[in-house]
């Protein structure tokens, strides 16, 4: 098991290293990183000075080395616009974003698990088809538009909830609902097909033959085995949710790192965007590694295989 954990961690670290290269190279794509980071009205003299200050006149690999050392020591440089440490700014906004993502995940699971269960149990029924239709609709909805509709209904029309999102109970409702609905359709589809697969397993038939009721089979046998796919679904959805959080935060002016990134675009604050991309990637990779390990804990077969090897 320790070996398994070490292996997955090393793999994750390699991916992150590669992400850092990509993020670093991004700034060169435009031709001149200095022009990218400075306000449009900067004079040529200012640009030259900035270039030297940032080390853009150095060879590329020297620059990458500086960048990597910076990233490893959690120093992405100082935001040109705010004059603050870029990483610190993003990190400060990370917690609200994670709160939003977590709340959205709960929303998605609360909707997806019962619907997928009913659909799988009554396969081919009206309910199943209805759930399928809802999932199809859900996948076709651009969620920033969903957020706006929710705003129109619950804030503008009914006045029940604040227009500005915040990491408080009332302030989280609409953003979490918006982001949660975004992940619900996919979660529901995957869960349903996984449950159907599990329900066709021989051991489910065995349980029925023992006299366990339909509901008992669902809870004690099917769900337990379907938890594993749910973990997979969640690990796939983490990235989707973090990406969606950018939009959701913008719609609701929710003070997370996505909103900060969007504001930084307007301010041409590229260092903040770089830090943001790397941190999001770090969260995704970290959670995937953790979920892989949890996977190993839930499924004794994997644990066994690892022990054997």
């Amino acid at each position, binding site marked *: 098991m320790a070996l398994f954990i070490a292996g997955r961690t090393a793999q994750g670290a390699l991916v992150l290293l590669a992400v850092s290269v990509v993020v670093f190279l991004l700034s060169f794509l435009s031709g001149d990183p200095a022009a990218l980071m400075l306000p449009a009205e900067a004079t040529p003299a200012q640009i030259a000075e900035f270039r030297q200050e940032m080390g853009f006149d150095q060879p590329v690999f020297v620059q990458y080395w500086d960048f990597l050392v910076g990233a490893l020591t959690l120093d992405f440089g100082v935001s040109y616009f705010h004059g603050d440490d870029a990483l610190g700014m993003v990190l400060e906004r990370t917690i609200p974003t994670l709160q939003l993502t977590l709340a959205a995940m709960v929303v998605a699971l609360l909707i997806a698990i019962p619907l997928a269960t009913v659909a799988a149990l009554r396969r081919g029924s009206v309910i199943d088809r209805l759930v399928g239709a809802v999932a199809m609709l859900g996948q076709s909805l651009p969620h920033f538009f969903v957020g706006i509709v929710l705003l129109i209904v619950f804030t503008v029309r009914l006045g029940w909830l604040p227009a500005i999102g915040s990491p408080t109970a009332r302030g989280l409702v609409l953003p979490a609902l918006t982001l949660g609905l975004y992940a619900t359709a996919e979660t529901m589809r995957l869960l349903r097909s996984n449950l159907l697969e599990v329900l066709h*397993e021989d051991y489910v038939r065995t349980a029925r033959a023992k006299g366990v009721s339909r509901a008992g089979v669902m809870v004690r046998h099917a769900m337990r085995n379907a938890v594993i796919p749910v973990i997979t679904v969640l690990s796939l959805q983490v990235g989707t949710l973090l990406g969606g959080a950018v939009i959701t935060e913008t719609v609701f002016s929710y003070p997370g790192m996505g909103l900060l990134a969007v504001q930084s675009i307007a301010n041409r604050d590229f260092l903040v965007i770089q830090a943001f991309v790397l941190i999001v990637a770090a969260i995704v990779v970290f959670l995937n590694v953790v979920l892989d390990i949890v996977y190993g804990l839930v499924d004794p077969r994997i644990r066994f295989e690892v022990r054997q090897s």
Partner: protein
Amino acid sequence: MAIRQQQERGAPVLEVRDLTVEIRTKRGTITPVDRLSFTLRGGEVLGLVGESGSGKSVSMMALMGLLPAGAARVTSGTAFLGGTDLLSVSPKRLNSMRGGVVSMVFQDPMSALNPVMRVGDQVMEAVRVHHRGLGRKGLRARAVELLELVGITDAGERMNAYPHEFSGGMRQRVMIAMAAANEPAVIIADEPTTALDVTVQAQILELLQDMKERIGSAIILITHDLGVIAEIADRVMVMYAGGKVEEAAVQPIFDAPRHPYTASLLASMPKLSGAVTTMRTIPGAPPDLLALPQGCRFNPRCPLADGRTECHTRAPELVHLDGGQQSACHFPAEVEKAFSRSSDQIEEGGERA
């Protein structure tokens, strides 16, 4: 309890009449079980033989109420077990009977046990659903007792193991422990040894017989292996294309089969003659249930049917012969002669080759 009392040897335990199952497929409706009737008696092992697709498993699943929902359904018949008709009883009541008065052992013990649940929990579950009052301690004690009964050493410790830590034979022992957990009147064993090593097969058969003696259950043993039948069954029922074609005690079946299909099955058993093993398969393919032949369903593969209009126009009824033997053939008396001749030819052919 009522059922328990009828368990004297020889008294009918399960009486199935005209069981018919239909399955709707894309190409049409098929009838994998067609008016099947049989009686299972107390304390006996009834062997159920036939090729795959003959309806043996489907009929047993129908009795258990475990046909796949939606596609397959029982369209007629009764199956009385201790005064209750398994086929018309409410789903809830049937649920309480499953694993209680009638239980099942499946073919593949690799997949029939839940891989993420401890073995002990699975055995305990089999007890718990029928003994709600029993506490965790009592459940555990009973589960250990059951595992010991089926010959698992260190049962107390093995309770905590997962199925993948068991060998195939051990897993089948666990399955049998679960099936026997509530001392059912009937245990249906669906090819319980097919997926196992040859050496383990004999042990499992012995265990089944042993459990039968201990708890007094009657057993329906589904198999395609006549060797297994010879070893453990008291009576045999042969199925072909959804219907029963022959039924008899074991000895008469092996000595003098009265249906050409049974005779073909016997002829296809591997035989050791001298140094050469001759293996014969039954000519022709199992019937297509969507396009059954007119008259007797076995006629395309039957050596007796050549040139006989009767076989091609009229479906034979089950007739009762001497010694309680039943056969669904128009010419039961000719079976023996026809097959002793042809099997001689085959053996000669085998030696020549």
